[in-house]
Every structure is written in structure tokens, then in C-alpha cells.
């Protein structure tokens, strides 16, 4: 029990001691941490961007509709008939009928082209059916089949799927997400190398000290310990700085984005990193720092022998 206590006390001492060393050269330490932070900010920023893009587009994905434009020759009664036939299908959840005059009124109200419409002879718009697919048919294949079936019906001029671009967006977000993961992996490796190189220089500067430690009976592990904690601090500091950079960028962007969303009638708000992700980032950056230091320190300290 006493030995264990002494063990932890020694580690705590080295932990604090290595922090003191970093503080003794604040500019150099901060520079290393900033390099790490910049390397981590890129994938993190991408992650925040994608997380928001997904949040913004999530609502669109579930509620996509088919717009069915009927032939100009079809009568209102015919429109009701087709709507009834569609409602009877198992893969259709709802059908809303928008007759031509109603469509014109809506267009006049929202488009601001009122005066231009007055100049037209008659109503250029057809009767339209807004078809919502059943949940079971809300797949890419399901909606495509439905679209084909409706297009084949008599008096149907054109069927437009509102969601093709949403599918493309989703695919693009997925691609970018994969990209963020790859970039994260590469830059994580970068962090390992940055810390490793810094620690290597550190070890070169403290060569004499390591020799003395070995001369008076210090093991490689003992000589390595302060460098491992040094690497941990570099990683943690870089991670914390990266979180700060992302938070600053999010804060700077959130007001303009809220204004933009407001102009589209959306209550969308830019969200930053949540606590769990932030904790994960700190843990990962600390571990990467430790790893970079471990790889380099293990090799270099073994190679240093008093002469």
C-alpha cells in the first residue's frame, strides 16, 4: 500500500514537474501546441460543418413529396378521380389536390409576379396533386416505382420528385464525412509526428541529464517518464486550443447564419461541439501526444548511454 502510494506520488510529481518545464519555455510550448491545434482544427471544423448540414437537412429527408402535374385538358372532376385512385394505393399516404385557380392564387401571393400574371391570358398552371408516399415506400427505390406508376396513368402530364437533390446532398454529406474521417486520421498521425519531433529535440537538449540519471541507477523508464508527460501536455494543450479555435469560429459564424436562416423562414441555429465530443477530442489529443512521445523517447533514451 505504501509502495503504491509512493508510486503515485512520484508520478504526480513528474506530472507537475513536466508541466513546469513547459511553463519555463512558454513561447516554444505554445507554438508546438498551436501547430497541433491547427492540425486538429481542420477535421474538427469539417465535422461541425457536416453535423450542422445534417441537422439542417434532416427534416427534408423524411417528408418528401411527389408533385403530379395533370394535363391541361383534364377536368376538375377528373383530378378528383385520379386523387381517389391514388389514395387507394398502399404506397401512398396522402394526396392533396391543388386546382389550377388555387395554384395561381398561391403563386400570385408568394412569388410577387402578380402584375405579370394579370397580363397573361387565362391560367397557365395545371391542376396539381401533391402525393406523399407511405412510410414503407419512402425509399429511393420505393419512390422511383411510385413515380413510374403515376407517370403511366392517363391525363398525367409530368411527375416530379422533390427529393432528388436531397438525396444528392445526403450522398455528398456522407462523402465529406468520410473525407473528414480520413483527414482526421492523417492529421492525427501528424500530431504524433509533431510531438515526436518536439520530444526528440527535448531529449537531445537533455542528453547530459539523461546520462547522469542512468549513471546513478535510473532505468530507461525513469528517464522517459517526464518526456511522456511532456507529450501528454503537448497533446492536451493542442486539443484544448483546437476546441477554442472551433468555438471562436462557431461563435463568429452563428449570428450571420441565424440571420440567413431567418430569411428562409427557418429557426435553424448553428451548433458547436457537444460536451461528449469535446471530451473525446481532449482524450484523443492527449493520447496522440503520449503516443508520439512514447515512440520517440523509448528509442532515443535507450540509445543514450553514459560514456
Amino acid at each position, binding site marked *: 500500500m*505504501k*509502495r503504491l502510494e*509512493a*508510486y503515485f*506520488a*512520484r508520478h504526480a510529481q513528474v506530472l507537475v514537474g513536466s508541466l513546469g518545464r513547459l511553463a519555463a519555455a512558454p513561447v516554444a510550448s505554445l507554438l508546438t501546441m498551436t501547430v497541433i491545434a491547427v492540425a486538429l482544427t481542420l477535421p474538427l471544423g469539417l465535422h461541425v460543418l457536416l453535423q450542422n448540414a445534417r441537422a439542417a437537412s434532416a427534416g427534408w429527408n423524411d417528408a418528401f413529396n411527389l408533385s403530379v402535374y395533370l394535363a391541361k385538358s383534364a377536368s376538375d372532376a377528373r383530378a378528383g378521380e385520379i386523387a381517389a385512385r391514388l389514395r387507394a394505393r398502399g404506397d401512398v399516404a396522402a394526396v392533396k389536390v391543388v386546382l389550377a385557380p388555387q395554384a395561381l392564387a398561391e403563386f400570385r401571393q408568394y412569388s410577387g409576379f402578380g402584375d405579370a400574371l394579370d397580363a397573361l391570358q387565362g391560367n397557365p398552371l395545371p391542376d396539381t396533386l401533391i402525393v406523399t408516399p407511405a412510410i414503407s415506400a419512402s425509399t429511393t427505390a420505393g419512390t422511383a416505382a411510385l413515380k413510374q406508376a403515376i407517370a403511366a396513368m392517363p391525363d398525367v402530364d409530368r411527375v416530379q420528385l422533390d427529393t432528388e437533390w436531397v438525396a444528392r446532398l445526403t450522398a455528398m454529406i456522407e462523402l465529406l464525412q468520410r473525407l473528414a474521417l480520413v483527414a482526421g486520421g492523417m492529421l492525427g498521425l501528424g500530431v504524433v509526428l509533431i510531438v515526436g519531433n518536439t520530444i526528440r529535440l527535448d531529449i537531445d537538449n537533455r542528453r*547530459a*541529464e539523461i*546520462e*547522469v*540519471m*542512468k*549513471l*546513478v*541507477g*535510473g*532505468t530507461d523508464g*525513469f528517464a522517459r517518464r517526464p518526456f511522456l508527460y511532456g507529450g501528454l501536455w503537448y497533446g492536451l494543450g493542442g486539443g484544448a486550443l483546437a476546441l477554442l479555435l472551433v468555438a471562436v469560429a462557431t461563435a463568429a459564424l452563428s449570428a450571420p447564419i441565424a440571420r440567413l436562416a431567418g430569411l428562409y423562414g427557418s429557426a435553424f441555429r448553428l451548433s458547436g461541439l457537444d460536451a461528449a465530443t469535446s471530451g473525446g477530442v481532449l482524450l484523443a489529443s492527449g493520447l496522440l501526444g503520449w503516443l508520439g512521445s512514447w515512440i520517440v523517447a523509448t528509442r532515443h533514451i535507450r540509445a543514450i*548511454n*553514459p*560514456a
Partner: protein
Amino acid sequence: MIRFDQVFKRYPSGREALSGVSFQVGRGEMAFLTGPSGAGKSSILKLIALIERPTRGKVSVGDRVTDTIRPRAIPQFRRQIGVVFQDHKLLYDRPVADNVALPLVIAGVPRKEIDKRVRAALDQVGLLGRERSRPLELSTGEQQRVGIARAVVGKPPLLIADEPTGNLDPDLALEVMRLFKRFNDVGVTVVVATHDLHLIEGFGARRIVLGEGRVAAESPA
């Protein structure tokens, strides 16, 4: 305590520093290694502390043949030996007390015990009260005494010193030698390499005289 048996040491440069050295130093004995520079004094001390390995022959320290000590076991082995260097080899970025405490910290001695033993060691070399000084604030002689305090703080049964008085004026040198004698008086085996024959007269200790990589003379034989 120390036994050399037909020991040869050739360095990678091709220089043969030791060409068949044999001698013994008994437990609790004090011995001076003398001879001109290049005669092999430093090589012998390095072989004892396992800083180097013999090319041929057998070196025994304590009851162990050093050949049988694996690299992983070297740190543990060195904790049984106090080493004093001509250039002190202190850590200049930390205070005297931390320098002296290093072997105890390495050995995992509890903090309270460390403070006590560091003060005792500094007292023995006449530097009590200088714990918080930086090594560079001290004179060369004082720095050497810090080095000695660090060598003895772990109470090793064997103390070896390589030209410990090389940079000191005669009065200080004599004082340092007396310090080694005092440790020997309480049972520590002491081996000191020095080229200063004048200094060691009157100590009445064993003398092993080296010349051209061999033991040229021993007195008393």
C-alpha cells in the same frame, strides 16, 4: 569486493586501454589507482560501473561477475555503487538538494526519508544549509562535494571516483581526499583514480600503479 582477472579492453577506435590487468580490492578497503594519463585508470572505473564491458577477461564486483549482468539489470547494479566524476556531472537546472536526492528518487525512497537523508549527506560534506542553492552559485570545490554527497546518499557499499581532485587547488583536494577516507572509515570500499601522487602520500592506503594498460606496481604488494 572488486576483482580483475586478465582484463583486456579495446575500444572501437582500436586503442587498447587495458592489456591484461589483474588486481583485487577487498571489502572495506581503500585503494588509489595511479599512473600517467592514458594508463587505463578511467577504463578500469568504467568497467566497474558497467559503463563499458571488457573485451576479454573477467571483472567481478561484489559477488557478481559483470558479464552475467544483463542490460536490464544494470540500473539496479549501479545503485550499489556511488560514482564521483572529475566534472561533477551535476544537473545545473535544479537546486543542490534535488541533485543529491536523485539516486533516492530513482530508487523510490519515500519523500520524508529523502529529505532526511539528503540533509545528512550534505552535512557529511559540509554543505548543510546550501540545499536551495543552484550548483552554479557554488565554487568548484563545493560542486565536487555536492557530487560526493550524491554518490554517498544511497549508502552504497562501494564508492569510486575518477580524478575527483583534478580541478581543485591543493588545500581543497586534500580536504576531498580526507572526505573519502572518512567514508572508508565507516566501512565503505573506496577506489580513487588520481595522477596526483603527492596528494595521496600519507593516506597509507593501497596503491595500484598502472602503466601502458598493465599493473606496473602495487604497494603494499
